[in-house]
């Protein structure tokens, strides 16, 4: 049996390789477009290819976390693409910053840096899981998807000020928890 529009999600979730090939056929132009949009400033095709592969591998390994139909799947794979591309972008920028000056060590933005440092690790997810659902959305959009306040406000139908306010309060809350985690480092 081959994967098609109606069965590819099921086949992907049960680890059938033709489903992976199916989503590459279907979504590669879009996934590559998203990666390119974020990473083109670096003029590094290798980085974009690596990011694209990483996106598909994540979809393969985390397929069971997806829940929904094929229209929702498009939304899911695009948000993973955005999140991975932003992740690559930040790591690259971080490296540039380290070599050029000490900007990234400035105290004022350390909470963002702290969060980025533990990004995508279970610690940050634990922090985010402690927030209310609406704040979870805001934080994921801001830190994982790199959206700015206007975009977040637009998607959630709220004012910019209320988003700023929630980010401010959420950060304060996270800061307390984050410092606990960071004190403990990655010790098990």
């Amino acid at each position, binding site marked *: 049996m081959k994967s098609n529009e109606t069965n590819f999600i099921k086949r992907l979730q049960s680890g059938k*390789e033709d489903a*992976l090939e199916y989503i*590459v*056929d279907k979504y*590669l132009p*879009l996934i*590559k*477009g*998203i990666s*390119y*949009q*974020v990473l083109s*400033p*670096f003029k590094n095709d290798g980085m974009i290819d690596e990011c694209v*592969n*990483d996106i*598909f*591998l994540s979809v*393969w390994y*985390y397929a*069971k*976390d*997806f*829940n*929904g139909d094929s229209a929702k799947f498009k*939304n*899911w794979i695009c*948000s*993973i693409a*955005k*999140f991975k591309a*932003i992740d690559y*972008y930040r*790591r*690259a920028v*971080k490296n540039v910053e380290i070599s050029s000056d*000490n900007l990234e*060590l*400035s*105290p*004022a*933005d350390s909470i963002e840096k702290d969060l980025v440092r533990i990004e*995508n*690790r*279970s610690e940050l*997810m634990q922090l985010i*899981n402690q927030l209310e*659902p609406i704040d979870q*959305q805001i934080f*994921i*959009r801001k830190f994982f998807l*790199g*959206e*700015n306040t206007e*975009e977040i406000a637009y*998607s959630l139908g709220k004012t910019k000020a209320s988003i700023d306010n929630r980010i401010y309060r959420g950060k304060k809350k996270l*800061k307390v928890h984050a410092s606990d985690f960071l004190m403990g480092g*990655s*010790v*098990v």
Partner: protein
Amino acid sequence: MNDIYKLLNDLEIDIKKFEEMEVSEFDRAKVKKELLNKIHSTKQKKWKNTVKAASLAVSLFTFGIFGLSFTTNAEEIPILGNIFKYFNNDGLYIDYKENSNPINEVAESNGIKVTVNDAVYDGEKLMVTYTVETEKYLGDTLHINGIPLIENEGNGTHEIFRIDENKYVGKATTSSKEKHSTIDVDWKLDYIIPDLTKDRERIKGDWKFNFQVKKADITVQKINQDKEMDGISVNIENLTITPTSFLINYKQVVSKEIIKDWDMADVDIEVKDNFGNIYSSEFHSGSGGKYYMTWGKTFQMLDPHASILIITPKVKLSDYDGIEYNEDGSIKGRYRLLKSKADIKEFEMDEIIVEIEK
């Protein structure tokens, strides 16, 4: 707990904003081939025991998630041998590599191969770098239970990064109370926990190492001297001298009054010796918050005849250099966080005199 992939289910994004890119049949085939290779290698690959760890030390590898693939300079491309480079927040990686003892011991059990690459001991702290290769994909990082012990004692931590599909590099740091000139190190890994959130089962196995490490030519001197001026205090914590450089760690504490007017307060240090040599330097670490920061700075090689270091703390109060990301990922400019109109202010504190212990 929900992982990010689950949480993204509930997040609607504006897909119309994304543009498709032209992709040739060749591109499609290439991506498929690479993906299937990766998946298969994790399913079927058997360890090649004949590969000696030493030969791995010179082989270049491709970088996965960890972002070092963007180095521009050929000589900056790290090779497996210099794992210290991954952990350069100590600022010591070059010196530590030069002063380390190559170990290259391998233990393999339950589908996981652990290679101890290097070890360095400075008289107090032991650092061991290692590589972990797994048959299965285990997630972005690993948690290892079991720390290398110095003469059967010590406490420590692990730092681990994934550098390729199924390959991780790690550094274990152990501290001991007693100082030794040569130490016997025992490392038994009790178990490994993969980071994959849905599969956090312990992987048990038989990974044991035993090796000896000589104290490297590195000295750490406690300083603990303070200076205070206009609401800012500095504490010089310690001085580390290696054959090729020296490092100073210090703390800064900023008072509320300062934070009211400026959103940034940074203390830099300038270092001279008793012959008037001024040492060039760069920061290797910085962490903390508004009120409290710790900094680490690396300086060039110490003049062997120098007996005194003169440290001048330099304070800079300024507004916020903010970075924000635009939707396309580009960086948005700076802005001031506080309403204050206070101007940038710089001043120097009195010198701190440190006698170098020989």
